């Protein structure tokens, strides 16, 4: 748990509820296992003391806020705040009903990467969760024999993939920001990082693509956690015509992931919740980050930087690039 951020969030949330400025505050509380945080909706000032902020707030609270009609405050780092802006544009939230409690973010950590460093040892506690990007966390636990360990892990070694290339760590359009802004760190060739298969030929790319999604069990956790997936009927559930089967056939699975990613194009803030939520460790961002890069380089659009700009697939410019048109 990050102490400064946690306390500031609790204080901000409490004030909002006490003053009656919102009906509810959406934030994170400690999950049932150490490296997880779970969404929580507080309706009373007292409940606000349960809120935390940690390196493992890897969901996306915009999904919880989406579709609500009461006045809510949402604890949001850069990506989530941008999703909230996007959802305002898409009429999922009324801006006047929304209060963004902004949290400058130093990047979330990947539970799986931490686990991989521990060679199967059980994690029972997160002892230290520093508020510096380049700090070290301390995790530890005991086995059945009563033998205990503590492991110091550099944050930079276990960040979630999307957090390495994040370009907007500070909240955008927040109503309040709980701590000083952090520096925006993304550097290097983010476009190349976004498209790791680009260096392969088509055959190899197809191989990588097929392999990437072959373990999908179609539990739709990615869809459920995503703030952009709020259709009442997802295209895979369409019945007239039912063109994309609901089966485990590879074409069906692939179609689901292709079109889901495409539907997020120009709206996705690369929050990484889909990958965090996936029980199978599938890298959906292979598709979404590629699209994010294209949207940025083709049309100069970064999603959610305000709530009035039309998403790139809702607008055009007469001189848009048209490399594929003869």
């Amino acid at each position, binding site marked *: 748990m990050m102490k400064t951020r946690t306390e500031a969030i609790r204080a901000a949330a409490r004030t909002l509820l006490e003053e009656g400025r919102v009906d509810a505050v959406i934030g994170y509380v400690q999950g049932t296992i150490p490296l997880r945080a779970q969404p929580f909706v507080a309706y009373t000032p007292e409940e606000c003391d349960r809120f935390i902020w940690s390196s493992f707030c890897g969901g996306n609270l915009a999904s919880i806020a989406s579709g609500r009609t009461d006045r809510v405050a949402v604890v949001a780092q850069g990506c989530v705040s941008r999703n909230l802006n996007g959802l305002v544009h898409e009429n999922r939230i009324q801006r006047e009903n929304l209060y963004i409690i902004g949290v400058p973010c130093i990047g979330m950590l990947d539970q799986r990467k931490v686990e991989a460093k521990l060679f199967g040892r059980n994690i029972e506690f997160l002892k230290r969760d520093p508020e510096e990007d380049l700090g070290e966390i301390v995790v530890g636990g005991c086995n059945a024999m009563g033998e205990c360990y503590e492991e110091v892990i550099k944050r930079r070694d276990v960040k979630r993939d999307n957090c390495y290339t994040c370009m907007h760590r500070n909240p955008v359009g927040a109503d309040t920001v709980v701590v000083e802004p952090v520096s925006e760190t993304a550097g290097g060739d983010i476009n190349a990082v976004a498209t790791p298969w680009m260096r392969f030929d088509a055959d190899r790319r197809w191989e990588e*693509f097929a392999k990437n999604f072959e373990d999908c069990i179609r539990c739709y956790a990615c869809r459920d956690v995503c703030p952009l997936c709020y259709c009442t009927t997802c295209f895979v559930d369409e019945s007239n015509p039912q063109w994309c089967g609901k089966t485990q056939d590879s074409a069906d699975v692939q179609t689901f992931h292709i079109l889901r990613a495409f539907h997020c194009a120009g709206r996705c803030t690369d929050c990484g919740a889909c990958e965090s939520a996936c029980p199978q460790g599938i890298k959906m961002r292979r598709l979404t980050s590629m699209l994010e890069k294209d949207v940025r380089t083709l049309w100069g659009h970064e999603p959610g930087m305000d709530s009035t700009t039309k998403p790139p697939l809702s607008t055009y410019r007469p001189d848009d*690039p048209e490399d*594929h*048109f003869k």
Partner: protein
Amino acid sequence: MKEIELYEPRIVAFFCHWCSYGAADLAGVSRMEYPASFRAVRIPCTGRMSPKFILHALRQGADGIWVSGCHPGDCHYGTGNYHSRRRLELLKNMLDYIGIEEGRIHFSWISSAEAEKFQQMAIRVVEAVRGLGPNTRLVKSVCSNCIPPVPTCDTMHECYEPLEEIPGAPRPNGSCCGGNGL
């Protein structure tokens, strides 16, 4: 002597009614020959081109896809092709990225007067796809998990969404006109 059958790719073409479909008509009037390897689906505007149609065609085993519309600025509806240009440009990049071979999917702007461009593009599309051979990617395997064979529509109701004005009309049945064969 037995004729050697050339591999005939199966190419789905989506042509805008106002331009490229007309260019194909004019190519006919001018008797410009091109290979009989694609079949045209007439759409009102490339703006109607849902990405679903391209994915559906690939899933159904199309070896190639060709979408052709009006030159930018000449859309019958003003802005349809501008929107489709963004959508298709992005979709093509994505399909390239996941390994759908360059040469399977083609986009062009052909006005209704450009019969020759149409003919040349037709030849170019067919040659490119023929060179790649049959498509195996993203193709839905036939009955791999036993979706019933092509259903038939028993009554008209099942073939379209009833118009809203008709109270009490039965809703379409999901199993009909859907599935693999529509």
